[in-house]
């Protein structure tokens, strides 16, 4: 089976068009606290929204100002004038305030234009407590009711469990691919791995799972990557542009692990379901999942994850990329700086914009960093 579609990471509308041609709905998702399982259970195609290749977000900038993060602006731009015009709507959580403002502006424009598109925001707590799970579950229940109305399909526990099962398959397969990157000379680069995790947004989960299986079946035929001088982990703001990692890897830094919401963190471990409370299990999974530092009480857990991953993937150094105006990741160093120092893990901090405009400068800095941390065999 040809699995090359896994490496086509530009935003594609083909699958959405095909899905909608069957008379079904396709709805965007912003951030990681809107469970895709709910959409599949309603027979709606969820499309995690991103801003890949958005080189001009001028219309969105008029709405959100230049003081907003370019990733969020890019999503709004694509919603207004781009591939996401195909969608029947989108749902966001208050992942960060920037994603919330994408919602606010889109809802406002929607009302003005009477576009009739479905635009919804759900509340996701920012701390874990016995109070927050029921609150979040109630928010998800309300969302389900709206998705049922939108799709005309009843969401049952059985449908939710089937959706969880399918998404879990993808999570397990992605985990296997990440395991391959522990090898001294892995068969997949960081650039290709990011393409592969991004491509889930371009197709229904069934297709994605089949392609991942085909890829894994073919691993034995792949040639290990031997030309690298240092093993890197990339952490930071939502990164949806594989070209960014390409620049890093061209300079000898092989990316073997990440803490990115479009990478490992967006998949994480499989979800466990308690049959007596299926929606409660989904709520618990999504709140507990370590995705980004938007949770107020998970900063240290994120640090632990990063340090453990560095050990387990034999990482020589961390590249910490932060989007301008991304406060969530932008200040995370206040938590991990000393801990990484104590753990002896070198770190390179780089500012970034969604538009890939500073490749030369990035390359020079990465090259210097790689030179500093590379080890003699």
């Amino acid at each position, binding site marked *: 089976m040809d699995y090359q579609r896994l490496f086509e990471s530009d935003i594609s509308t083909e699958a959405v068009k095909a899905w909608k041609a069957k008379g079904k709905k396709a709805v965007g998702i912003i951030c990681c606290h809107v469970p895709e399982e709910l959409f599949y259970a309603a027979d709606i195609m969820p499309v995690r929204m991103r801003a890949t290749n958005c080189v001009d977000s001028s219309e969105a900038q008029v709405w*959100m100002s230049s003081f907003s993060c370019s990733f969020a602006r890019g999503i709004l731009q694509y919603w207004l004038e781009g591939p996401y015009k195909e969608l029947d709507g989108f749902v966001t959580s208050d992942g960060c305030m920037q994603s*919330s403002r994408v919602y*606010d502006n889109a809802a406002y424009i929607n009302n003005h234009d009477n576009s009739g598109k479905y635009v919804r925001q759900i509340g996701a707590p920012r701390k874990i*407590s016995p*109070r927050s799970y029921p609150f979040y579950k109630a928010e998800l229940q309300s969302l389900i009711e709206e998705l049922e109305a939108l799709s005309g399909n009843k969401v049952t526990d059985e449908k939710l469990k089937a959706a969880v099962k399918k998404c879990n398959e993808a999570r397990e397969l992605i985990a296997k691919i990440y395991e391959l990157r522990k090898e001294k000379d892995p068969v997949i680069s960081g650039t290709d791995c990011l393409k592969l995790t991004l491509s889930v947004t371009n197709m229904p989960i069934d297709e994605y799972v089949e392609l991942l299986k085909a890829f894994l079946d073919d691993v034995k035929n792949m040639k290990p990557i031997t030309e690298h001088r240092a093993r890197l982990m990339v952490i930071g703001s939502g990164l949806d542009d594989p070209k960014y990692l390409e620049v890093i890897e061209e300079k000898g830094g092989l990316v073997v692990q990440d803490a990115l919401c479009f990478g490992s963190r967006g998949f994480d471990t499989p979800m466990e379901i308690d049959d007596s409370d299926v929606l409660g299990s989904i709520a618990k999974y999504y709140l507990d999942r370590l995705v980004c530092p*938007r949770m*107020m009480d998970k900063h240290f857990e994120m640090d632990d994850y990063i340090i453990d991953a560095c050990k387990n993937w034999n990482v020589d150094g961390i590249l910490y990329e932060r989007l301008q105006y991304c406060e969530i990741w932008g*200040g995370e160093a206040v938590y991990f700086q000393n801990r990484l120092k104590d753990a002896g893990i070198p770190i390179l901090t780089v500012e970034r914009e969604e538009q890939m405009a500073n490749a030369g400068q990035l390359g020079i800095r990465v090259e210097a960093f790689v030179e500093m941390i590379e080890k003699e065999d």
Partner: protein
Amino acid sequence: MADVKNLEELVLKGEMSITEFACAKIDGSLERMKEKHPEMLWTMEIQKFMWDNYRDAHKNGKKLVFYGGSVPTELIAAFDCFGFYLDTIPFRLSTNPALTAQYIDEAEKYVAPTMCGLDKTELGAWVSGAYGIKPDIFVYNSVPCDSSRLAYPAMEKMMNVPTFSFDTPFRRDDRGAEYLADQMEDFIVFMEEHTGHKLDWDKLKFYMENSNRNFELQKKCSDLRKNKPCPLPGRLLVLNGTTNAVACYPEMGDLYAAELEAGQMMVDLGIGACPDEKYRVAMLQNMIWGAASIMDWMQMEYNAVAVMDAFGFQGDIMYEHMDDRRDCFKVMGKKMQNNPMIHGASGPSENHLAMVDKIFQDYEPNVSMFLGHVGCKHTWASAKMVSDLVQEKYGLPTLYLDLDCIDGRYKSNDEVKAQIAEYFETVVMK
């Protein structure tokens, strides 16, 4: 009394804490005011009450509770603690740019430069060991913004004292109010454990009654501003922000009572804050804490008075059933969600828009300004919606102007004045 520059030097050298600095500076201002404007003493007395109590809480036998974001101050007071609202540090220091610069630079060793100057100042001052006082308890909230959500958990770790955090939902509906009311119960358990006191409902009632009185008075002061000419100067709007810190104390009510009396006298005499009011300005974002004198300048130069802002006015959320525990806790939650700064920086923009709409309906401004604090990116991301509303419904253009309300290095007062002047001369007065 040493002059402010000398005091500043002492703070910069680490020989004086920012708390001592603030107290000394307020004492100095009071002394000068006694000589030159004794009738205006009430504007500073609330500052003295606040800062002296921060400094002397332990001496007065009270536990000191540091807090960030909107929290139920009535409960803190009812447990016989004094709350230290951390945002009062950057507010107070913002007129001393050398100090804020030092702490902001310190914070930027760890956080992105784009983080809000309020949080950077609070964080940087703590890292520098400049507070001069230590909390017994720390309480914070998940609002208003991503900056504070980053800064407060970091400060929790650094302070290493018993800490409680509230999680405030984005939307302001009944589910959210119930969620916050549940958290009040958790907070009471926490406070009982760490203060050694049981919640005394009569004490709480006292503070809730104070709170009601204060907001009623605040509302009356705000209503005075509907008069033409507006009797109260724009600068006094800044003091509304103080309610976040001491809304439940009688001293806050005393300030409003004095403001009301002064304002009513002006109305009775038919006098406005401007000698010849021509322009009534609506301020659509935060207050320009570091440059409040710009409002005096607008009054003198253009006969333009800031009649209302979308920051300090809190609305009409009152305790109505003070023996109904659940109802009181839901009101506390609603107050937290509608506190100054929360409306624009957190929660759906529709709340901010509704507030701006109300300002234009009630205060009839004829000039619209969005003097946007650059750290408040979330409010900036609502700016077009807000200015479109003003244009479409009230036919007024809006001046967008970026500034840093805390870090004077971003843009000088003269630059801000020049941009405002240009707007008046090329748009407003044409």
